[in-house]
């Protein structure tokens, strides 16, 4: 081997490494550019909400000022009026009651359904599982007409208890579906070991499946919570007096009078309404991600 080739070697390796670094840098730069664009795009509406909620009515109405900044100083009047002089707190309370009940009902039904469909193989279980998912694909904008008849027949029209009955038609199918997937990712030997250890099906569910599948269950809970908290079509259709109304529809209907939009209070209401989901996401995000990326249970 000549000395020239020996000398060429390290520089070649160096060049290869440099090009690798360059590649990586470009990949990073591109990622950041798109992530920043994405973040800006999605942060504009919340920013606009905050800015508008902290302005006085006079400033909001003033056409000459820049809508993106607060020129006349920060005021919390919008929040004060919203919480003291409107039915906002009643909507908030109703939404909490409905959501807690819906999440509880959904979890009980879905966990049992997913366990039996995903684990206890029986005749027709496969078709049933697919059927449940198909019901999720029917949009609520189609379902509300027949559901109206049902809710009316039961006598729950204009009652938030009607919502407790109706929302699970949206949440149960999807939650069952993601939990079937999660339960199936748990090794079969785990229930066999439990069977041999002396557990019945209920003990297997409560002592093994629920603890092991907790990330999946929490992911499903967050989903049920979000759907129930943000539902619009059903309360819009089934509820009309303000003592029964929930946040989404209540805020809009009570703060838009004819063509008068109380923008400041609308934005303040939207912010307060968005707070609980934000807090829950912040605390349970890790579980949510773990739930969606299932299968981390290899014993």
């Amino acid at each position, binding site marked *: 081997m000549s000395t020239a080739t020996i000398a060429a070697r390290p520089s070649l390796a160096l060049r290869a490494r440099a090009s690798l670094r360059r590649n990586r840098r470009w990949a990073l730069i591109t990622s950041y550019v798109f992530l920043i664009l994405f973040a800006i795009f999605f942060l504009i509406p919340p920013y606009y909400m905050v800015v508008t909620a902290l302005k006085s009515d006079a400033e909001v109405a003033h056409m000459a000022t820049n809508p993106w900044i607060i020129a006349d100083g920060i005021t919390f009047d919008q929040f004060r009026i919203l919480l003291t002089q409107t039915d906002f707190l009643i909507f908030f309370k109703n939404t909490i009651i409905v959501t807690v009940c819906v999440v509880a009902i959904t979890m009980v039904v879905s966990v049992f359904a997913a366990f039996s469909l995903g684990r206890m193989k029986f005749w027709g279980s496969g078709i049933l599982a697919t059927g449940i998912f198909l019901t999720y694909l029917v949009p609520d904008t189609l379902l509300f007409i027949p559901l109206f008849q049902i809710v009316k027949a039961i006598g729950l029209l204009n009652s938030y208890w009607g919502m407790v009955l109706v929302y699970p038609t949206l949440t149960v199918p999807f939650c069952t579906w993601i939990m079937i997937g999660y339960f199936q990712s748990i090794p079969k030997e785990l229930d066999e070991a439990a069977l041999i250890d002396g557990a019945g099906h209920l003990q297997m569910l409560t002592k093994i499946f629920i603890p*092991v599948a907790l990330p999946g269950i929490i992911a499903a809970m967050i989903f049920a919570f979000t759907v129930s908290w943000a539902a619009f079509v059903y309360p819009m259709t089934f509820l009309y007096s303000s003592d029964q109304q929930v946040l989404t529809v209540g805020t809009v209907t009570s703060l838009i009078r004819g063509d008068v939009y109380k923008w400041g209070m609308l934005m303040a209401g939207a912010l307060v309404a968005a707070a609980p989901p934000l807090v829950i996401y912040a605390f349970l995000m890790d579980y949510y991600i773990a739930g969606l990326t299932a299968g981390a249970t290899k014993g």
Partner: protein
Amino acid sequence: MAEVLLRNVVKRFDDVEVVRKISLDIPDNEFVVLVGPSGCGKSTTLRMIAGLEEISAGDIFIGGEVVNDLPPKDRDIAMVFQNYALYPHMSVFENMSFGLKLRKFPKDEIKKRVDKAARILDITELLGRKPKALSGGQRQRVAMGRAIVRNPKVFLFDEPLSNLDAKLRVQMRTEIKRVHQMVKTTTVYVTHDQVEAMTLADRVVVMNGGVIEQIATPQDLYHHPKTRFVAGFIGSPAMNFMRCRIEQNGVGQRVRISDAISLPIPALQAPRFQSLTGKEVVFGLRPEHITEPRRSDRDPNSEFAVTLDVVEPMGMETMVYFTVEGQEICARVDPGSSSGPGEQMRLYADMNQMHLIDPQTNAVL
């Protein structure tokens, strides 16, 4: 502790019969290994004993009692799985005590039993840990501990060492044997690894295609296989099989393998094969019985010369491969005596160890 009996047990999945009318007697305290290639029905048989799989026909007895329709928890068995199947959210102690807790054992009794099992398996310091903080070998010990604490009538092992690396597998094999010698519970162990089967078992059950080919002690299985399948399955490298013709000459019977190679059947065995003269059969001889001519009392008639195709040095021995009549043959020779590939080598066949197999029935004659 109890004996396990299988009587004409059949398992069908839809139309496919995976276990075909097998019968097996496992006396109290015995360590039986079910071995065979994948799909031979060994795991299904074990799962039927465990009660995890319903039986399609026949009877299974544990301790004299028919258990056909008993759920697993009422059969008083314990099982160790290939992937350990530890409960990931429970500590080692909780994993081991789960079965006892479900059976409502008093707390101090549970603690006593877990401590004792932990001492046997040397996992006392791991009791507080979660399974994910354990290595593969430790997890397997915990899985065994979970079986031991229950003090069941029968231990069932389903390929428990397949997930471990080669070195750990050998170590755990010894461990399992040691534990069995200590607790002496009737054990049924499933593996596809014939070395594991030979080293662990009191008796080995060789299965193939849903039937039992042979039940015998490891030594018996090695020296007196009953079928071509068993002869080829037990032993590594596998037994050589060669088509041959039995000939009779003035001195005695000979096995004619090729025009150049014909080997004498030992006088002691000759009467058994008298009726085969002139017939085509399969000649079986293990690689370790084809060596360089080393014994002083050997029969020079049993020597032959071949050209080596491949030479594989293994350290303490060397495997040499050559071809006779289109059939690849392996021999096990001393590292010092081997020739190189493409070269000639003189080999000696220990004809006392030969087997003749009926090509139609595959039975060893």
